[in-house]
């Protein structure tokens, strides 16, 4: 037996360290399908409790939509359960290519390649298309999967201050001598809910002959007039060279991701991206579900319109109640509490009132920027939002933070 006491102790000590630092993550078991209302077992061992969910990425309420479930059943019946192969051996079905074409059409791009997840898309894309002569210039708040992808790539890298276009321009000038330059950012930032200045970025990229990359995981399906994403909202459709996105959030919420964009870049990924080459792609049942999701969204903007209305109601309600929010207009609405313990206590009190929303604190967000991140869905009905708002106000009153400024809250609770 190689798992000696000494080895065991090394891990036990590390786990204890994580626990003592208050960073130990615990799963909560949900006994229902994903929806506006879910049944949560919390604490573990207790009877499941019915709560309104305001922390899922289920922006369009499609995760358990009857039509999507029906399409998935049909996919299961006609294309089977698994492929038992990677794409380029015998793991590609007609529906995989059909989905790639549909995604290109939806995003307004030249071509698309599926990945097992968007984490995999981000992990694989940079290495497939860049060499040590190139430079990746990324926003400092990009998603962890992008950071991992950049770490796996031999290209040089640099960063710019979050959404600071003057700083980005300086970096583009500094690296003018590199073979290829890629500017890398998220379309909507998942922790703050703010939107990238893609129009300004596209102009800078044109000026300095740089490629533009954007991760649309928190935008695809609902940002922009017809839900195509941040590039639609910013009026730069067709100008983004590389888009990555996930099917694990608004677009049905199951799993899977893709790289979409310039034809040659997508082809390079097909030839070289390791998570594509060495891992099974999305299961047929999920592909069938996503195809239906894209049909639903292409036929009508009803769901994203409802999401916009719900978001307006929610932001207005919380603002009028006197909470400190992060500015923005996306369905990611962070309620700022600044102190980590306050965020945890607040979340627990909400749960007691039937509202499921999670506290985020360092190191997921910067020190002193603890918050409850709420996420609104087209699956929420007005009565859900009204009940959730009532609960927020009730707990806000308990901690006496309504109408208080950031400074005042920090004075009361620390940061």
């Amino acid at each position, binding site marked *: 037996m190689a798992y000696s006491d000494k080895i065991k102790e090394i891990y036990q000590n590390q786990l204890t360290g994580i626990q003592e630092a208050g960073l130990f993550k615990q799963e909560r078991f949900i006994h229902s399908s994903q929806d506006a209302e879910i049944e949560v077992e919390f604490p573990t061992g207790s009877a499941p409790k019915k709560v309104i969910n305001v922390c899922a990425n289920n922006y369009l309420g499609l995760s358990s939509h009857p039509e999507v479930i029906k399409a998935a059943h049909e996919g299961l019946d006609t294309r089977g359960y698994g492929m038992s192969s990677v794409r380029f051996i015998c793991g590609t079905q007609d529906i995989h290519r059909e989905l790639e074409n549909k995604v290109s059409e939806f995003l307004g791009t030249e071509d698309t390649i599926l990945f097992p997840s968007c984490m995999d898309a981000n992990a694989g894309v940079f290495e497939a298309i860049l060499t040590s002569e190139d430079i990746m210039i990324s926003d*400092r708040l990009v998603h962890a999967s992008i950071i991992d992808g*950049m*770490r796996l790539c031999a290209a040089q*890298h640099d*960063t710019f*201050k979050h959404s600071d276009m003057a700083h980005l321009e300086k970096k583009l000038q500094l690296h003018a001598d590199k073979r290829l330059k890629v500017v890398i950012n998220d379309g909507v930032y998942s922790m703050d809910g703010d939107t990238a200045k893609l129009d300004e970025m596209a102009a800078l990229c044109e000026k300095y002959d740089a490629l533009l990359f954007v991760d649309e995981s928190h935008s695809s399906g609902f940002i922009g007039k017809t839900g195509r994403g941040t590039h639609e909202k910013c009026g730069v459709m067709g100008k983004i060279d590389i888009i990555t996105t996930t099917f694990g959030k608004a677009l049905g919420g199951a799993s899977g991701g893709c790289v979409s964009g310039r034809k040659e870049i997508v082809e390079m990924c097909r030839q070289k991206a390791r998570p594509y080459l060495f891992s099974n792609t999305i299961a047929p049942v999920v592909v069938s579900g996503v195809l239906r999701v894209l049909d639903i969204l292409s036929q009508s903007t009803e769901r994203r319109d409802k999401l916009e209305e719900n978001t307006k109601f929610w932001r207005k309600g919380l603002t009028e109640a006197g909470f400190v929010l992060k500015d923005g207009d996306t369905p990611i609405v962070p309620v700022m509490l600044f102190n980590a313990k306050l965020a945890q206590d607040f979340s627990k009190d909400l749960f007691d009132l039937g509202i499921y929303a999670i506290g985020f604190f*360092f190191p997921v967000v910067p*020190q002193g920027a603890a918050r409850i991140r709420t996420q609104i869905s087209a699956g929420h009905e007005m009565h859900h939002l009204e009940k959730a708002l009532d609960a927020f106000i009730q707990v806000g009153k308990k901690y006496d933070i309504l109408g208080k400024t950031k400074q005042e809250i920090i004075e009361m609770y620390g940061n």
Partner: protein
Amino acid sequence: MEDMKEIILEYVIEEYCDEENDDVTFDTPLISGGIVDSFSMVSLKRFLENKYKISIPDADASPEAFDTVNKIEVLVKRFQ
């Protein structure tokens, strides 16, 4: 010649800080304090190498060695 520490501090503030966190001093923990993330550290390394005409091996460019302006000065002098 300007003091090396002053020059480094000036760069750190310009490159990494905004109104919310510009009260950085010579011994403010930059990386462990969350002001500079380890991924963004690379521009600081590049700046030092260009400014002082040195080359810092990756093995020496650890987050610990870059954690304060004081420590960075020690590091730079080691490779001058």
